[in-house]
């Protein structure tokens, strides 16, 4: 199936929804492509419902009003024919064409054919994924990411009866722990590696987003009520069990960044949820050739200008891919991107004043995100917990010993480690092991993830028979929507 449109938005989370609505309201046609069955992304993940169902559970979700507003606006645009919603589509590549870009997607299974969208501009709002760190036993059943736990809770109902330990770093630990309690689960403890007083250095940034401070206090209150212990400056160092996790060992990290001797503690659990923060999903950006950036700590992102345009002329990006910053920032960036895209196509959506206000808000939220990143850093001591037998690449079952052998053979970057050990060659193509491997390369302090290793040209698997089908000719410029409906205001 082939569709021609002005703007193709990939991802229907906060950034994508906001971008699609802003662009559509500014008067351009929009295709909204997303892999899930309903809009909302991971942040507003909910059980499948009627299309554009605007009511999600207040107990579980934040910014429920915002979600309702955006869903309703998107639904209105869809009714008018200005927005085409394509759920259940996994984009496997985005490439430049003379007229703009071509987005190719396939359904999950069974895959019989491709869905192709030709657009003048693409807005990549592909969100983020957890950034897990390996430790002995992390590959046991029952060990999952906090994001995975969230998706089970939000999208799929209850986890009552499970005894869950949450560990890692980041505000998600507390909020998820509170959610587990609200859903009838038992929280065995929260193990946060950050040091509690780091926030003091960032009061100015905190002041910009008071709602978050109130939220944080709320979670702590809920946990205290349920007598859940929250340890800070501590980490999980191993998980044990037969066929599933049953015991987890944690230890305190001293001021010098090393494990405090004698501080090990064992917890009985049925599930262990771990998160060391998020990392943006950049497969499509890398495939399209957008310039990527990485900071000294190894955090990667796509470079965008003031209007959310990437270095590729036909591609914008909004939300987590431009730098992890949470849903509020994603909503703002999405609005800016949608508006800027429409302007680029000759449609002046929104007053200039609005755009200025949005950009000011973006600055404040980015400052908050930077502050968060400095508080919730990845503790660099984690490789010391590894044993030779610890799985580093889950897909290909490559152990730490095998990674070391590759390093001894002369591998000095993530790609060469991959070529000599197979780490990153499996199904997930290095999405999970790429960052940890980069930390294990001597002379790469702070885990500078090589940007080149982020290239995953085929971002979603597809059968050879579908790949073998004929390439549709690019929609000529004259066939792209030329006279879209007049701009409408929400």
């Amino acid at each position, binding site marked *: 199936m082939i569709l021609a449109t002005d703007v193709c938005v990939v991802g229907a989370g906060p950034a994508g929804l906001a971008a699609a609505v802003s662009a559509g309201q500014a008067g351009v046609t929009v295709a909204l492509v997303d*892999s899930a*069955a309903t809009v909302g992304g*991971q942040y507003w993940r909910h*059980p*499948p*419902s009627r299309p554009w169902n605007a009511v999600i559970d207040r107990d579980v979700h934040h910014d429920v009003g915002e979600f309702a507003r955006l869903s309703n606006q998107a639904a209105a645009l869809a009714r008018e024919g200005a927005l085409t919603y394509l759920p259940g589509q996994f984009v496997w590549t985005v490439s430049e064409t003379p007229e703009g870009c071509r987005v190719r997607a396939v359904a*999950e*299974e*069974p895959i019989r054919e491709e869905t192709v969208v030709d657009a003048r501009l693409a807005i990549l709002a592909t969100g983020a*994924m*957890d950034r*897990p760190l390996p430790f002995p036993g992390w*590959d*046991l*059943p*029952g*060990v*999952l*990411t906090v*994001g*995975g*736990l*969230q*998706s*089970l809770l939000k*999208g*799929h*109902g*209850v*986890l009552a009866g499970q005894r869950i330990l949450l560990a890692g770093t980041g505000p998600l630990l507390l909020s998820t722990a509170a959610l587990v309690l609200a859903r009838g689960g038992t929280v065995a403890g929260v193990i946060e590696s950050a040091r509690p007083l780091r926030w003091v250095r960032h009061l100015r940034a905190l002041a910009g987003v008071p709602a978050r401070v109130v939220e944080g206090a709320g979670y702590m209150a809920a946990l205290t009520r349920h007598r859940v212990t929250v340890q800070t400056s501590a980490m999980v160092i191993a998980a044990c069990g037969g*066929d*599933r996790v049953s015991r987890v060992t944690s230890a305190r990290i001293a001021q010098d960044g090393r494990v405090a001797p004698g501080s090990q503690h064992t917890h009985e659990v049925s599930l262990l949820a771990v998160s060391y923060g998020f990392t943006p*999903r950049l497969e499509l950006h890398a495939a399209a050739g957008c310039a990527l950036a990485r900071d000294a700590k190894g955090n990667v992102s796509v470079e965008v200008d003031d209007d959310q345009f990437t270095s590729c002329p036909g591609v914008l990006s909004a939300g987590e891919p431009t730098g992890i910053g949470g849903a509020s920032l994603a909503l703002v960036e999405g609005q800016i991107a949608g508006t800027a895209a429409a302007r680029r196509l000759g449609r002046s959506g929104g007053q200039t004043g609005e755009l200025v206000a949005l950009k000011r808000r973006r600055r404040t939220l980015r400052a908050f995100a930077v502050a968060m990143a400095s508080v919730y850093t990845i503790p660099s001591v984690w490789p010391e917990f590894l044993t030779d037998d610890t799985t580093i690449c*889950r*897909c*290909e*079952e490559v152990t730490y010993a095998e990674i070391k052998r590759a390093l001894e053979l002369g591998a000095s970057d993530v790609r060469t480690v991959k070529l000599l050990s197979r780490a990153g060659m*499996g*199904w*997930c193509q290095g*999405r*999970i092991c790429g960052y940890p491997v980069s930390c294990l390369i001597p002379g790469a302090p702070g885990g500078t993830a090589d940007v080149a290793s982020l290239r995953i040209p085929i971002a979603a698997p597809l059968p050879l028979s579908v790949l073998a089908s004929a390439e549709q000719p690019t929609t000529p410029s004259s066939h792209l929507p030329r006279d879209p409906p007049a701009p409408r205001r929400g």
Partner: protein
Amino acid sequence: MPTFIFDGRAVPFEHGQSIAAALIGAGVITLRRTRRRNRPRGLFCGIGVCFDCLVCVDGTANRRACLVAAREGMVATMQSGTGLDDLGD
């Protein structure tokens, strides 16, 4: 309550749940065994990026259990090896 089959056993689910979620709800945590070392694996990332939750559903191997919506009458099995070890038989 509707059910699907996993390794011959009826698993109840709520409308909209993924196979993985329904299985966890039913106490089934192991979804497959790995190719090299035959070790058990379950759901890990929950959003379809880690490819650990691979199961065979209605005859198609290597489907991510966290993405497949459970449906009445669906037949799923645990995988081992490549999941396709009887390809071409």
